[in-house]
């Protein structure tokens, strides 16, 4: 609904919220009880229907998570029946452990690159493929297609493409850009960037789909009104389109952040966190520590840190998004 100010801001939340209906009875004493009783009965049935899923969730997620989290404060090696509580020693070790410090930094860096990259690329693709160009349906499918391929398969494919003697360097040499050839996965400075690129290549299509859906909700009459008022394409985008896309931005950003923080497949397949630890991220560090070094308690501590970072990142993102809607 147009709020009628000169900046053409759109309150999309008001447009999307269902109207509230209040039911009043003639008897002021008796009438509040019956609807309340009916609501309580309905809630009870809902709870019973939720019971199987709730049991499964508690059994497979909540209880093992709590059990596992306890091990972060012990010296358990994953096999022995004997272990001791060691308090915060595992967390203190992280401060001086180059593997942990590098993994945390790389996880945040990779998440930043892939979140910003996927959102920018996805939005640009959505804008381009929402215009009246021919074959836009085919192009949407083509760009979305990599998303449905297993990340492990994509990682193996790109590992081959990025070989020093692989197709990418081959193409660069063929077009006279031999100076640009690199050891994409073997150079500590480039390994993580190369992996980030692969993630962007695969997953930008998914973000594009989210934004295409969001663009359907941008009112055409607002865009026309803005055009009539003399606003150019860029002004129309920032004044009309982008505010209308806020829900899509919230969803896409949150998915990218969570996806970036939990990245494992691409790193493990392409570099195993190497060379050295230059492309190590938290997920791969947890796996390596638990299963290749047998230090389960330290791996669990790293996993708790990853969970904490994810929660904090999601909370910040939600707060920023909510602050934006309250403006």
């Amino acid at each position, binding site marked *: 609904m147009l709020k009628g100010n000169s900046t053409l801001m759109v309150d999309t939340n008001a447009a999307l919220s269902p109207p509230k209906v209040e039911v009043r009875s003639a008897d002021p004493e008796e009438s509040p009880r019956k609807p309340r009783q009916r*609501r*309580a009965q309905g*809630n*009870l049935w809902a*709870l*019973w229907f939720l*019971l199987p899923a*709730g*049991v499964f969730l*508690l*059994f497979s997620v*909540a*209880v*093992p998570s709590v*059990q596992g989290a306890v091990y972060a404060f012990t010296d358990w*090696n*994953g*096999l*022995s*029946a004997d272990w001791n509580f060691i308090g915060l020693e595992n967390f203190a070790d992280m401060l001086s452990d180059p593997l942990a410090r590098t993994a945390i930094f790389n996880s945040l860096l990779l998440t930043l690159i892939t979140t910003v990259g996927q959102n920018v690329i996805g939005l640009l693709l959505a804008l381009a493929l929402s215009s009246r160009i021919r074959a836009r349906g085919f192009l949407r499918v083509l760009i979305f297609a990599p998303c449905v391929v297993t990340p492990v398969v994509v990682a193996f494919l790109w*590992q081959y493409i*990025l*070989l*020093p*003697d692989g197709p990418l360097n081959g193409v660069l040499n063929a077009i006279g850009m031999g100076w640009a050839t690199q*050891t*994409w*996965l*073997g*150079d*500590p400075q480039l390994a993580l960037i190369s992996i980030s690129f692969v993630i962007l290549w695969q997953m930008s299509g998914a973000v594009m789909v989210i934004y295409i859906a969001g663009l359907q909700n941008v009112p055409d009459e607002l865009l026309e009104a803005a055009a009539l008022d003399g606003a150019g394409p860029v002004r129309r985008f920032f004044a009309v389109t982008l505010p209308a896309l806020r829900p899509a931005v919230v969803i896409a950003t949150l998915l990218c952040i969570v996806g970036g923080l939990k990245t494992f497949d691409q790193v493990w397949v*392409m*570099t*195993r966190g*190497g*060379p*050295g*630890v*230059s492309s190590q991220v938290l997920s791969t560090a947890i*796996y390596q520590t638990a*299963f*290749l*070094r*047998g230090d389960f308690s330290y791996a669990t501590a790293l996993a708790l840190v990853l969970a904490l970072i994810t929660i904090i990142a999601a909370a910040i993102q939600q707060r920023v998004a909510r602050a934006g809607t309250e403006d």
Partner: protein
Amino acid sequence: MTRIGGAGRTVLAATVVAALALTAGCSGQGNAASTGDADSGTLTVLWREGQADGLKAVIAEFEKQNPDATVDVTYAEGDAYLAAIRTQLQAGTAPDVLHVWPGNGNVAATIPLAENGSLMDLSDEPWVDSLSEEIAPYTQYDGKTYSFPSTLSIIGAVYNNAALAASGLEIPETWSDVIQFCEDAREQGTVAFSVGLTSTHESQFISYALYPQLVQGPDPDLDERIAAGETTFADSGWKEALDKNVEMAEAGCFNDSAQGADMFEASRIMSEGESIGMVTIGQYMPIINNPDLTLAPLPGSDDPTESRIAVAPSTSAAVNAKAKNPALAKAFVAFLATPEMNELFECNTAGGIGSLPTVVEGAGKCDDSPFDVTAIQFLEEGRTGGFPDQTWPSPDVQMALQLGMQEAVFGGRTVDSVLQDMNDALLESTE
């Protein structure tokens, strides 16, 4: 928010109790082991995919001789195997017979698993006395035997005979020859040795090949002395071994794609003759898939008589301490440990190239390849050494070496920093 009444709280309580009741059953202890029969029933095995052919041949014979016995095998490889075996042991769902590594230095090696009580004591088995004095320590913990090593694995310099003949060069016999060999190969437009450093363990093979001559020979008690604070890795032959690895890179010994290639690419390069050789382990033979190979030591000095080849026990069979069919499991391991089956296993693993049987006198039936003949010759001459990780107290030392040399080979970090990391890892694991 709607308050949940008494009935709703009942549902919630029911959910929590049901979930906890389900998890209470997951004690991780597994079922109590029964004794079972030694010739009937179902035997479960967890084995490495790379040795599947050898095991299948032995299983076929076992089932023929024990018609009432059925063997079910699950295969895994690499990191997946390490994750599977420890997870299953902890959960109490591990099979009766397990592939383990000999000695220490690996989360699925004999010593750490035996130390945790995960393996059955096999000291009273008839085959224990057939193990040589050199091999026996790698099967034992606290004086008891826990595993049977089926093969000896070999690390050395492997040469593609066709590529070698085409180059007109000769296999280097001294360290100076190695550097000259590399330079000559470069001049011809080829490469002396292929390596794929994105596979983490590739970065250890040069130093492992030099270990018997430069480290173990001069100081066989090095690990104990480091643990006691009497010396360090930097003050040992490891310094020279790692420096020589870097010197080889500087001399152009390795393929230009070394930093970006993996073990499969490195193997392909050597197999197809794009490089003349590769410093590698016998277990790569199925991947290299080229039988026309020659094994030689990687010389660590200019005295050819000092050169050594690394030979050590490898693929080992152990019995789960909580095996559901312990009698049948022991019988299977004893069957595998007979000279006939030991030879059958080894011959069906990559055609027998790159490995040797452990309880067969002299050469096995399939050990007539130039690769194996050289290994046997060095064994008979007493010119072999072991693999260093099998005596390290934790996998962290090997990991420090592998990850460090991944960067150090081409100058990404210093050899001294790698040696310091190895020292720190060994000292931490012995605290």
